[in-house]
C-alpha cells in the first residue's frame, strides 16, 4: 500500500456569449444633479460581481470616477430588456450595451461642458477623476458635478444615453452543422498534482495551477475569484459530486448536504494562476468572459494526474475511492 503522486494537464477553449446570438442586452444611463451617473439595467448579479464590473466599464467610458456610478438593476419596470445572466454573456453583452449608452451620455456631457467652458467639444478632455478640461489649458476646468447640475438648472438639458447590444441570431445548417456558435474564445491550461492512497482509494489534490487567457480583465480580483472558485468546483465535479452515484440506477440519490459530497476547507489545495490578456475584437474593452470556464480544465487535469500516479484509467465521473480501488484491483489481476 502506498501513496502515489502524479501530475496531469489539460488545455481548453471556451466559447463565451450565448452561442447562437439573438440575445439582446440594453442599458440606459442618466446623470443626476450631483454628477452621479445612474446605469439602469435588468441584468442580475449572481455573485460574480457583475454590478462592479459593469460600473467600471461605465466609469471608464464616461471618463468619471468609479464611485460616481450607481448601478440600478434587476427590475423589469425600470431596467431595459436583458436576456439574463448565463452562458458567460453578461459582462460581454451588458458591457457592450453600457459602452454604447455611456458614449452617448458622454457626448451630452461634453456638449454642456463646452458651453460652460466656452470651448469646442473636440477641445475637451475628461481626466477620469471627475473633471473636464480644455486641452492645453489646465486652468479652464470644470467639475462634472457642476456641469451635470448646470445642464439641468441652467440649460434645461438632460445628460443621458441609451445602448443596445445584440449578436445577430445565427442559423444552424442541420446537415453540416455550419454555424456561428460563439462571440469569442477564452482559453485555459491547468496542471494538477494529486496523491492517491492505494489503501483507501482517496485522492488528495495537492495543487491546481493554471494559465488563463480571458481577453481583458475588467477587475483582476474578481477574475481571480472565478478561477479559485471554479478550480474548487472542477475538483468537486471530478472527485465528489453526483446525484446518481450508480448511473443509470436511480437509488442513493442525495436529499441534503450530508449525502451530497463536496470537498471542504480541509481538502482545498493551493490554487495558483497567471492571466494573459489578448483583447477580443468584439468584447467591451476586449473582454472575453471568465465565469463558466473555470471548472472545465481542472477536471481532466485531475483525472489525467490520477492515471499518471496509478496507471489506472477511469473514464467515469466522479472518480470516487470505490472506482479507484476497483481499478487498482483490476490492474493487479491484469484485467485492465
Amino acid at each position, binding site marked *: 500500500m502506498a501513496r502515489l503522486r502524479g501530475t496531469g*494537464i489539460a*488545455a481548453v*477553449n471556451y*466559447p463565451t456569449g450565448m*452561442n447562437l446570438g439573438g440575445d439582446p442586452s440594453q442599458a440606459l444611463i442618466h446623470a443626476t444633479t450631483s454628477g452621479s451617473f445612474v446605469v439602469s439595467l435588468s441584468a*442580475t448579479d*449572481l*455573485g460574480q460581481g457583475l*454590478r*462592479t464590473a459593469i460600473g*467600471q*466599464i461605465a466609469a*471608464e467610458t464616461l*471618463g468619471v470616477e468609479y464611485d460616481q456610478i450607481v*448601478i440600478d438593476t*434587476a*427590475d*423589469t419596470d425600470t431596467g431595459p*430588456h*436583458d*436576456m*439574463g445572466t*448565463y*452562458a458567460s454573456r453578461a459582462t460581454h453583452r451588458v458591457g457592450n450595451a453600457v459602452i454604447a449608452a455611456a458614449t452617448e451620455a458622454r457626448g451630452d456631457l461634453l456638449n454642456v461642458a463646452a458651453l460652460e467652458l466656452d470651448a469646442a467639444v473636440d477641445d475637451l478632455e475628461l481626466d477620469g477623476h471627475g473633471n473636464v478640461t480644455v486641452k492645453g489649458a489646465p486652468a479652464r476646468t470644470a467639475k462634472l458635478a457642476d456641469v451635470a447640475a448646470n445642464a439641468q438648472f441652467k440649460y434645461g438639458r438632460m445628460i443621458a444615453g441609451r445602448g443596445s447590444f445584440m449578436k445577430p441570431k445565427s442559423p*444552424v445548417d*442541420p446537415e453540416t*452543422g455550419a454555424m*456561428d*456558435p*460563439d462571440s469569442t474564445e477564452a*482559453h485555459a491550461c491547468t496542471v494538477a498534482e494529486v496523491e492517491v492512497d492505494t489503501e483507501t482509494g482517496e485522492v488528495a489534490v495537492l495543487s491546481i*495551477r*493554471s*494559465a488563463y*487567457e480571458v481577453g481583458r480583465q475588467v*477587475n483582476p480580483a474578481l477574475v481571480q475569484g472565478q478561477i479559485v472558485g471554479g478550480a474548487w*468546483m472542477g475538483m468537486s*465535479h471530478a472527485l465528489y*459530486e*453526483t446525484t446518481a452515484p450508480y*448511473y*443509470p440506477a*436511480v437509488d442513493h440519490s*442525495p436529499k*441534503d*448536504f450530508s449525502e451530497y459530497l463536496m470537498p471542504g476547507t480541509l481538502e482545498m489545495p493551493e490554487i*495558483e494562476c*497567471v492571466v*494573459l490578456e*489578448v483583447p477580443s475584437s468584439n468584447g467591451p*474593452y476586449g473582454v472575453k468572459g471568465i465565469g463558466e*470556464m473555470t*471548472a*472545465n480544465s481542472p*477536471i*481532466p487535469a485531475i*483525472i489525467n494526474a490520477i*492515471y499518471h500516479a496509478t496507471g489506472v*484509467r477511469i473514464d467515469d*465521473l466522479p472518480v470516487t475511492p470505490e472506482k479507484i480501488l476497483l481499478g487498482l484491483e483490476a490492474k493487479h489481476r491484469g484485467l485492465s
Partner: protein
Amino acid sequence: MSSHLNVVGQSVRRSDGIGHVTGRTQYSADRSFPGMLHLKMVRSPLHHALIKGIDLSDAERVPGFVRALTAKDVPHNRYTILSLIGVEPEEEFVLAEDRVRFKGEAIVAIVAETEAAAFEAVSKVHLDLEELPAVFDVEEALKPGAPIVTHWGNNTFMYEGHPCRRVRFGDVDKAFEQADYIVEGVYNTSPIEQAPMETTGCIAVPEANGRYIVYTNTQALYFSLDNTSIILQIPGNRLHFIGGTVGGGFGGKVDVIVEPIATLAAILTNRPVRFTYSRSEEMQVSSTRSAWRIYMKDGVMKDGRIVARKVTSYADSGAYSRQTPYALTKHAANAAGPYNIPNVSIDAYCVYTNRQPSSAMRGFGITMASFALEVQMDKIAERVGVDPWTIRFINAYRNGDMKPHRKLAEDATLIETMQAAATLVGHELPDEFKAMTSAPRDASHDGGRE
C-alpha cells in the same frame, strides 16, 4: 478604444461587498408581506405513471388550507421555456395532467396560511397512480421498445428532422483508413446538483393596480416574466419582476419553475404567495447538470497529428428538455476541441429519460466535452509515444484555421496559454514549442501575430 485605461483593469472593491459582510444584502426570500400565503407542491412518488385520480378532500379539511391548484387551473399548462427563441415543441407541464414522467414532478399546488399547514395538506392529498415502465439510461432510451417519455413517440429532441445535432466536416471514414493509429474512448459523467446556497424561490404580490410584483432569484428576469405571461395568458405589462443578488446561480435559476405557479396562486387568492424550494426539492427536483456519455474515435498519424475525430454524445435531459437542446448544439460546435482537425463528424443527442430534468449549468455542453477531450488527448499521446504537452502543441488550433462548424478561428490563444502554464509550473518546453504562436499558419514564418 483608448489604450490607457483608468478604471477597467483595476481591482476596485465590490460595490455590494458591505451588504454581503453585514448581511444587509436582500435576497428574494428575505422579504415578508402581511397576509402572505405559502405554496407547497404535491409531487409524484413514482418515476413514470398515469394519473388516475386526485383526492383533495382530506387536504381541504386541514386548518389553514386556502386552496389547491391542479393542471386545469393553469391557462397555458404546457410550455417550453425556450419558445422565446423559437424552440419547439411545447412539452413540459406546470402541473402534471394525465401522466407523470419523473419522480418529483409537480401534480398539485397547495396554498395555505402557514408553511406547516401547507406541508400537512400536501401530505393529505391522495394520488391514484398507475405505474408505467421507466427508462433511465441514455442508450436504453433509444432502443426499440423502450418506454416513451415524450408525447411525440421517440426519446430524442428533433433537430430539423434529425434525432441529433450534426456536424460534418471533411471525410472521417476515409481519414480513419489512412490513419496510423485509431484511438477510442467512452466517457461517462454523472448528473450534478447545482447546489446554490440559496434555494430557488419567489414571492408573488398582488398590487392595487391589477399588476403583480414577483420578487425572484431568477438569473434571467425577462425570461421568467415572458414565460409567466405565456403560461398565465396575461399581458406581460401586468407583471413586474424584481431580482437582485442571486444567492448562487450556476444555470439552474434560468429555469422558469416557481414564478408561474406562485403568480397564478397570487391571482387566484388575491394575496401574496411565497414558493421557495426546500433543500431536498433543490436536490431532487430542480434541474441538474446532465449526465453524459461520449464516444470518441480519433485517427492519428505517427507524428502525432490528429487527422480525424468522430464524436457521438448523449446528454441525459431527463423527463423534459428545458435548456438541454441548446447545450447539445453548443456541444456539437465545440466537441472537436481547440485543435486543428481536418475531418470531423459529430452526432450529439438530447435524450429523454424518466429522470429528474437536467438543464443549463456552468459551462453546459462544454464542461463534459472538455473532460472527454482532454483525457482522450492523453491517451493519444501515450499511443503515439509523446508527452501530454507535445500532443497538444502539435494539434493546437491557430487563427485562420477553419473550425468544423465552418467559422474561421480568430481569437485562438491556446498555444500562448499552454506556454504560460508551462512557465508557471516550471516545465521546460522544447524550443520549437516555445517559439510557436497562434498566428495564422501562412503568416507564421514572417513574424507571426501583430
